[in-house]
């Protein structure tokens, strides 16, 4: 039997994610890399890594779907779809009963209203870094803490402080003030998480908060934010095992759907002519 393979690549502002699946929707490989300055031109390398892990060559892949902030400039992609649709699809494949998905990435925060696996409506943050993953990164860096450690620290808090500045840079200032005044670190970090969660909760309210609520994106790895979000939304929040992958997985799945539709129309799918060119990244956005 001939297998068909699909790849989804999600070029986020901070992380590059690749998922390779087969026509049974099994995940054969996934790679998550920092989209750090040195990696920006290297989407093709990340792809190579994914292919190696799946023991496939680029010619085996029937369809590459690109999504995320840098989706426009992936030369080896067949098509681009927004991360909104891809996240919705990816999240629904993990949690079929999802009705509200929240994704907090490095660059923005999104709320997705999903019914029967389909994206119906969405909201997005804009303009500034408040309420995005960058918010926590910037502050963690200022505190000299690894961003991964924030969650654990905040869970020790007994009495969170309030962080009122919306501007990330000034919130950082506020944090320093609190610490200087002798507030324990865990209470300050818990305050940051709460500020972020309440901002997110306000943003997604218009979509109606109904379970299942699923939380993805880099920030979903932070148990402190998850807890704060549950408090602010007043309902349980589900987090997939690998919360960074929903976009890339959704992209691969949408790629598969695209191919199946094409096949159903009697079109043939092309393979074997793909070149893994370097990405000319972030051209327009």
């Amino acid at each position: 039997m001939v297998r068909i393979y699909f790849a989804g690549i999600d070029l986020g502002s901070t992380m590059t994610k690749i998922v390779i699946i087969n026509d049974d929707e099994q995940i054969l490989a996934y790679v998550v890399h920092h989209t750090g300055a040195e990696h920006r031109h290297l989407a093709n390398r990340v792809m190579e890594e994914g292919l190696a892990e799946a023991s496939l060559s680029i010619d085996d892949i029937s369809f590459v779907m690109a999504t995320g902030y840098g989706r426009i400039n992936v030369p080896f992609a067949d098509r681009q779809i927004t991360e909104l649709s891809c996240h919705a699809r990816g999240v629904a494949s993990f949690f079929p009963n999802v009705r509200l998905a929240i994704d907090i990435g490095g660059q923005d925060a999104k709320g997705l209203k999903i019914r029967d696996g389909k994206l119906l409506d969405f909201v997005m943050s804009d303009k500034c870094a408040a309420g995005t993953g960058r918010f926590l990164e910037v502050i963690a860096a200022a505190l000299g803490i690894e961003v991964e450690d924030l969650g654990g620290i905040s869970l020790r808090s007994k009495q969170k402080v309030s962080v009122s500045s919306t501007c990330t840079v000034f919130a950082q200032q506020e944090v320093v003030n609190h610490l200087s005044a002798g507030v324990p670190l865990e209470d300050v970090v818990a305050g940051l998480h709460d500020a972020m969660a309440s901002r997110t909760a306000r943003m997604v309210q218009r979509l109606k908060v109904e379970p299942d609520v699923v939380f993805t994106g880099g920030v979903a790895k932070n148990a402190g934010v998850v807890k704060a979000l549950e408090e602010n939304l007043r309902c349980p929040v589900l987090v997939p095992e690998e919360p960074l992958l929903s976009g890339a997985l959704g992209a691969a799945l949408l790629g598969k759907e695209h191919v199946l539709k094409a096949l159903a129309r009697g079109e043939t799918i092309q393979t074997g002519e793909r070149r893994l060119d370097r990405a000319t990244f972030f051209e327009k956005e």
Partner: protein
Amino acid sequence: MTTEAKPRALNRLQSMYALRAEVDKMYEGGVEASEEGKPVAWVMLEGWSNAILNAMGVSTVFPENYSSLCAAQGVATPFLDRSEAEGYPTHLCGYARTCIGYSSRMVELDGEIPPEAPAGGMPKPVLLVASGEVCDARFKWFQSLGRFFDAPVWTIESPYPGLRERLMEGAHERNVNFLIKELKAFVAFLEKLLGKKMDWEALEYTGGGTNEINRWRWEINELRKAHPGPMNTRDFWSAVTAALFRGAADPDVITKGFERMYDEVKERVDKGIAGINRPERYRLSFEGLPPWHSLGFLEQLADRGWNFVIESAYRPPRPITIDLSKYSDPMERYVRRRYRRLEDSLREDYGPEEAEIILDEIRRDGTSPRMGLRHIKDYQVDGVILHVLLTCRSTSAGLNLLQHRLLDVLKVPSLVIEGDIIDVSAFNPAEALRNAEAFEETMDHYRKVRKELGMPW
């Protein structure tokens, strides 16, 4: 908000408390009326509809005021969030968003008053009376409440022409006639809605009572010119609600309350007692609407010797006797009692000489730099706080212009403080205090400038 260790810096008026209690009574009255099956209307504060509604036996409650009450009690935020959840942009008026959130909550509770609502809450309305006066929010907001209530909305239309346009020949009489017709149409609508006839005699009473209250308020403000200022704006804001928002309240009781306040302020003037318990270092005016959630901030400023001796909003007009003998139509009497010719009110307000200068400037430039400055001069104000509201276009759009006029004409500086009437998160007290400290130097500087120019203060 504030932590007071020292004796309070503000010297509160005892007579204020009774007036403030009347406001709570008004809301209780609204709920009672609703429980008794009497009609309750939600009404925007404007000069026209309230007396008419009361004359028709309709109880009135005031969502604008109610929102400020929610803010003052620290319970507005959940309502604001709810409005956002309904899809209303967050830059819309804080009063409106609080009310929209409240209405949405009422729908969730099948029309019941939310248990968390302060002062007993506002009962479900049979009518919404919007206003085309002062700001757009006041009719757009009630229009949008259609999402929550099937109560009809009547928008009271009143003229708000440009200054020069008000001076055009025939414009004043046209505006008067417009108002008379418009309000008669409103009465006809009410008669249709309520199935009863207007009580025109009652209007003579409900409409006339305002003048008596305003006369006391005007007299009190006259006393406030004294040095040191006998009454801080904090007391003004606490009491003004009773004067402006009179639904079920008895005009006589309110009148008495302000009469008592007059006596108390008079006594202070006679004894040289100030509205703050600190030496009066600076006399200030508060321009715009206050941060209802953080009025305690005035305590901190009072501690620095800042006495807010006057404010721009809701200043009562100078009492005058208008000859209504020519007019027999009760609505015409009602309208002519309040809607004054611009020339006349300028002359009363600024005196004949300055009024002529102002009128000339308006005719020439369409605007006059001297307008809106009378109280600054009369109260010998050292500085002005301009409260720029995040969610209020109509009060904030013109404040910078006022700032320029104050400096150009009177050499009085102003300090811009950004904040909001409802949204506490828009206000940064620490920052405001820091700027206030620096502003003292600015006030000192302009004291010298005025002195050099031979100005009286």
